[in-house]
């Protein structure tokens, strides 16, 4: 036990002290925040300037209203000037639309206009007129926006809004309807998800979904990142040939266990730091979330956290032993790539099934997947977060998982013991099976 502690201490200190760990731990959340925040900040930073837009209004009914609409405050620049200055173009009495377009295209290309809008003749027309136009094989009834630069979705959106409100209002008025009333009538209602638990009702739009997704991802990441650290550590001990010096003082199993525990402790440290960051960030950002925003933070029951810790630890152990065994079989990280594939597959599969399980947590397939020990840590965790399964299922999954962890640890220790003293070509599967039988 004392020797295992020494190994745990060494692994922990050696990793926690590295620049990689310190930078990763601090920069991790900063990077995450940056990925979320920076695009929003940058988007609001884009410089808007006044631009001249040509309007070829073939219907001859839209231009004036559109011009008025774009003069409203929401379409103005921050300094109070108009953002869009419209310039009217008439279809020449004898020329075709194509000739008009040619002329306008030239103006766009030489930057006289930043864009032009071509409003079709029957834009306000009833359906009969529109389908007559379409059947005649001429252009459809869409409004064309022509510019050299068509990927500013914000600008397209605001022009689209203005155009539609003008056109719809005109259509309604033509039928003698009151646009104000109509817009009241077609006001949508919202479907408000409310989660009922023993504690009562609670509004929950995206909370459960996000929390479950997040918890599953954390387990996945922890296993994946720290499993690889274990594997690299084993490979390093082999390739630096220090392994036999260590084994002259302790059992291979003690070394393996110490390594897994020590690196696990590193993982816990890192995730604790991140949790503190996260809590600070959420309590800070709560003041930013406007009242009635789409996301309401659902309160997470304590049992979810307790199960999370249980599945986190068992899941880590299960895969850590795999990684240690693989590390013992190879001489370099390059060789490890291939052997590590099946592990990675078992880790990624539950992630692909995530959405399915979140949507139907108590379906037969979900129950089966959550009881399959290699998937249990992620899938059962999800089910618990989404819809608490009967305790029999949770208990069974934990028992199965513990049995698998014990079996895997035993197997991995057998492989590890022989593997760490083996150099040269990685062994074939049949050879590994034979190692397990060695005394």
């Amino acid at each position: 036990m004392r020797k295992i502690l020494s190994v745990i201490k060494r692994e922990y200190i050696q990793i926690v002290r590295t620049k990689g760990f310190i930078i990763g731990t601090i920069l991790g959340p900063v990077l995450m925040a940056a990925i979320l925040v920076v695009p929003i900040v940058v988007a609001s930073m884009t410089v808007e300037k006044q631009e001249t837009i040509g309007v070829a209004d073939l219907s001859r009914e839209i231009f004036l209203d559109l011009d008025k609409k774009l003069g409203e405050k929401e379409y103005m620049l921050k300094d109070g000037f108009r953002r869009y200055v419209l310039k009217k173009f008439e279809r020449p009495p004898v020329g075709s639309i194509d000739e008009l377009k040619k002329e306008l295209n030239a103006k766009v290309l030489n930057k006289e206009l930043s864009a032009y809008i071509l409003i079709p003749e029957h834009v306000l027309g009833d359906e009969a007129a529109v389908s007559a136009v379409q059947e005649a094989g001429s252009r459809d009834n869409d409004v064309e926006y022509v510019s050299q630069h068509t990927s500013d979705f914000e600008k397209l959106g605001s022009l689209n809004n203005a155009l539609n409100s003008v056109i719809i209002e005109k259509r309604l008025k033509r039928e003698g309807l009151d646009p104000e009333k109509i817009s009241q009538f077609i006001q949508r209602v919202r479907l408000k998800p409310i989660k009922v638990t023993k504690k009562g009702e609670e509004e929950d739009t995206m909370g459960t979904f996000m929390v479950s997704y997040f918890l599953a991802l954390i387990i996945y990441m922890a296993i994946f990142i720290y499993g690889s650290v274990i594997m690299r550590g084993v490979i390093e001990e082999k390739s630096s040939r220090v392994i036999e010096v260590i084994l002259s003082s302790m059992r291979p199993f003690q070394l393996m266990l110490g390594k897994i525990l020590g690196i696990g402790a590193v993982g816990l440290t890192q995730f604790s730091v991140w949790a503190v960051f996260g809590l600070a960030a959420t309590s800070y950002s709560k003041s930013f979330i406007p009242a009635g925003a789409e996301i309401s933070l659902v309160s997470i029951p304590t049992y979810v956290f307790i199960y999370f810790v249980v599945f986190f630890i068992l899941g880590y152990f299960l895969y850590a032993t795999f990684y240690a065994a693989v590390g013992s079989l190879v001489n370099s990280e390059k060789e490890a790539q291939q052997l590590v594939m099946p592990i990675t597959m078992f880790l990624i599969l539950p992630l692909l099934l995530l959405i399915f399980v979140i949507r139907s947590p108590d379906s037969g397939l979900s129950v089966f997947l959550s009881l399959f020990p290699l998937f249990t840590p992620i899938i059962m965790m999800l089910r618990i977060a989404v819809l608490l399964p009967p305790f029999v299922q949770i208990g069974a999954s934990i028992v199965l998982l513990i049995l698998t962890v014990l079996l895997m640890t035993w197997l991995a220790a057998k492989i590890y013991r022989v593997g760490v003293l083996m150099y040269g070509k990685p062994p074939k599967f049949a050879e590994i099976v034979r190692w397990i039988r060695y005394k």
Partner: protein
Amino acid sequence: MYALEIESITKRFGDFYAVKKLSLKIPKGTVYGLLGPNGAGKTTTIRMVMNIIIPDEGSIKVLERSMDEEMKERIGYLPEDRGLYPKMKVGELLVFLAELKGLTGANARKEIDFWLERFDLSAWKMKKVEELSRGMQQKLQFIVTVIHQPELIILDEPFGGLDPVNTKLLKDVMLEMKRKGRTIVFSTHRMEQVEMICDNICLINKAERVLEGNLSQIKKRYGKNTIVLNYDGDASFIRSFPEVEKIDDYGKFMEIKLKERSDTQALLQNLVGKISINKYEVKEPSLNAIFIEKVGGKGVEDEKDTVSH
């Protein structure tokens, strides 16, 4: 009083016998040589003594107790495949490895400082292992082996890859340990070192023991019928002499084994005038000659491949 008693141990890897029914006894306070060509089973034997590999059959007693994990603290082991954690600082590495041998706290610090001073490495205590030169890393590796004052010291090919300075240093440490009553076992296939240091030897070939016992008695058993000759000129004619049984010719140095009861003086007579003789000595056969005779100069395989099959 034996420091190590091995009783008929066998280790198989699949169908391959790495060690077969090997027995040996090592008296306390002696230097014992475990000899044999590459692949004979020396490393596997040592690993079984260290409890790193478990024998299929037989028993091992170390310091009069059957070998178990606790005994590892009383043994110092220098593996053939040497290595240290390259990224660790010298001082931390020694603290860690001493801790694994049960040496902690102030005792450990005292020993570490003593040995670093002794091997002239004190200035490197705060440096990373990878910053040390190869020779310095070798010295550090000796310190690791002896830091916990082991009663039994096992060295697997200790002189392999050492420069002359470190070879002498290690030899001095070995003799110093012997004077303190420690027992030293070392494996090698370099006979000249064995002849200079060992009290007893065991020769292993193809997993089995071929020869064991006191070195001088073994040599005596082979009798004084070997001639060591230092010469200049063409000495190939000696092969045709009827009393010659075997010749090991190095060009300027020759070891001649004569048949039983041959006349060594008559042979000298036959050489005078034909070659220039710098030295003519009648003696026991060298261990090298015994080794080659017993092993037959065959069976040289790479030992590493035979560790596990």
